[in-house]
């Protein structure tokens, strides 16, 4: 029983990390209609930017902002110079997926000579361990949970209560109608890439900090869990991604405690498959923040 409770605590951390990554990913898809498979590589590139800042004696929490800024700019640049030209020529969704896969490989191979293949770790990887009964969480992990909650609330506020958020929802629902109504959709999309890119960068640093050590190859792992949470919640739905993150984060840890760590991934993806069979559009499709503004 104590292991189960401990696993619940670890699940809270995992779901926080996944939520940060999944919300940005799903917003990119929901608003720009782009399944960006380079998302994991941008995460890890941002994590390395923060690592180099951290090595220069910058606190990892400050370096995290550097990682987020890098993620924002890098994502913006990728869209402007790669994705947008392809989309402008009418490339189909599947074609764009392949383009993003190519971008992912290019980033990975371009980074390899710079960052090398060795594992690295942030200087502040260890923090004081606090125990709440059977739940043991480090100060870093508690900060990560708090950060995730704050970011989720900020995303909610952005989408619900700001002009930009309403413009995003309108662009997601019907870009042409939004344009005809006077919404500068291109600028909205630029803003989306900057915002989701910063979420991507932030998630990369948080995931790398949570992992203790990371390598250039860690991006694929980060992407898979973000993708799973996004699909589970309903592709393009930020609230769905949050719920997906909660389910995947908790289920993976609890199943490892109840059965065996061997089944950790199996159980998580079995739930994903089950949801896809029973509700192919995902848990929150047509009910999320990016559904037609009304």
């Amino acid at each position, binding site marked *: 029983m104590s292991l189960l409770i401990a696993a619940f605590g670890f699940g809270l951390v995992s779901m926080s990390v996944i939520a940060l990554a999944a919300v940005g990913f799903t917003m990119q898809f929901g608003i720009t209609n782009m399944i960006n498979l380079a998302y994991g590589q941008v995460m890890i590139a941002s994590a390395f930017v923060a690592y180099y800042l951290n090595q220069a004696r910058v606190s990892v929490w400050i370096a995290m902002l550097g990682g987020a800024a890098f993620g924002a700019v890098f994502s913006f640049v990728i869209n402007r110079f790669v994705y947008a030209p392809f989309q402008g020529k009418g490339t189909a969704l599947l074609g764009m997926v392949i383009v993003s896969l190519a971008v992912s490989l290019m980033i990975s191979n371009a980074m390899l000579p710079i960052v090398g*293949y060795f594992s690295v770790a942030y200087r502040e990887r260890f923090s004081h361990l606090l125990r709440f009964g059977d739940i043991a969480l480090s100060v870093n992990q508690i900060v990560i949970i708090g950060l995730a909650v704050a970011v989720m609330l900020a995303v909610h506020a952005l989408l619900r209560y700001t002009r930009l958020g309403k413009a995003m929802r309108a662009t997601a629902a019907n870009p042409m109608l939004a344009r005809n109504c006077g919404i500068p959709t291109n600028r909205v999309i630029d803003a989306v890439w900057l915002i989701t890119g910063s979420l991507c960068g932030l998630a990369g640093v948080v995931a790398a900090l949570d992992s203790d*050590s990371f390598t250039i*190859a860690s991006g694929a792992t980060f992407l898979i869990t973000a993708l799973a949470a996004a699909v589970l919640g309903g592709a393009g739905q930020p609230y769905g991604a949050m719920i997906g993150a909660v389910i995947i984060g908790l289920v993976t840890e609890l199943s490892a405690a109840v059965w065996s760590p061997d089944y950790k991934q199996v159980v998580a993806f079995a739930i994903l498959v089950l949801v896809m069979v029973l509700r192919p559009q995902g848990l929150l499709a047509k009910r999320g923040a990016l559904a037609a503004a009304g």
Partner: protein
Amino acid sequence: MVVERLRRFLVVPSAALVLVLTACGSGGSSTGGGLGSGDLLVGVLAPFSGADANLGPAYYAACLAAAPEINNNGGVGGRHVTCQKFDTRGEPADAAPAANQMVASNSNLMAVVGCTSDEASAVAPIVDKSHIPMFCMTGQSEFNKTKLPYFHRLVPADIFDAYGMVGWVMYGPNHSAWNKVALVFGDDIGSQSFVQPATNALQHFGKTVKNFAIHLGASSFRTEVQSMLAFKPDVIFTEALGSAGTYLGEVKELNGGQSIPFIGTSATIDPAWFKDVTGTIGVGDVVQYYRGVDLGYTFSGKAYEEFKANLQAAASTFADAPKYGQRGSTLHLYDGIIMTGLAMVATNSKDATVYNPKIKEIANGTSGATVVHTYKEGLDALKAGKSIRYVGAAGENNFDQYNNSQSGYILVKYDAQGGEVQVAALTPEQTKKLSDAGGL
């Protein structure tokens, strides 16, 4: 007509000259059809990207050190050796096309090195079918009695690594009694091959043992660590390539800042593994808590010094090359390439069906063979008409009928700089006891 006569006039002596030059160049016990011309290629078929991207560079370094050793001594019958990377990404699905592309587009392949456990099953049959000698860095048991004649393994099967680790528990000096052992390896087939022999041997000696498989590459292992800590192990057996830093970091964190002694396979004697683990638990803890097993390298002697000098020089091509000066796989593959070059010269053949069997002969030696330690010594002995045994940078090789080479184990630790420190050596009697206890 005048032109025709002139042609005959030139052709006859030219042909004679070619015959004379070929005869002069062949030397040694020539049985083949000549060494040909143009550069020779060693294919480094290994992961250079993906989760095991740290493996390929160690093998590439071996080739970069071996090439000048051969080239600076006249090459292989005048042919220079070059090295080329073929990235398998550590995935069989990517490795098979890479291997096919390598053999299809390079008719000058003299040998292939690398082929780790990630992809050996997929690529070894392809390379073998193309009649290219290969030196693979896999411990998979499926190659213990392989029928692939071009396959060579210069490292023992994984089960022997497992016995070596049990050897640390039973015979290693300066540690308290280790009665409870946690096995922490990846949940893939290759990694789990350590588990059964280690479990058998430990249980035979009355130890309590439990397997805690982990999914390599996961971003965290907290629940797995918590479960393992509940077992209260005295020592952990592990390899966990690519995930050891994260796992052991979480062990220390969840164990109240205290690491637990851990014993690594020979693959953990590796700069990438050292950096991964020291990055999370610190150099002090690695020096204090890490134990490892390795093959009995001396890191000294003429062959090793020659290897080291070539490896240092390779830094101009590959800056990280000198880091692999004490990595077993780098030493072994270097030796494999040198032996292949010598086999080609000895048979005076570029045809692998001719020189492949000679590799084993040069490695094991025959009665009365002259022991050589460098490529030049080998060439000189061959020119003098002697048969040779090459004892290289990694020491002696003893290929069995399945082209598996076995050698003894040493018990090691790390120093603070990541250098290997030998603590003890397992005697042949101890190794036999362990092997018998494992029963595989």
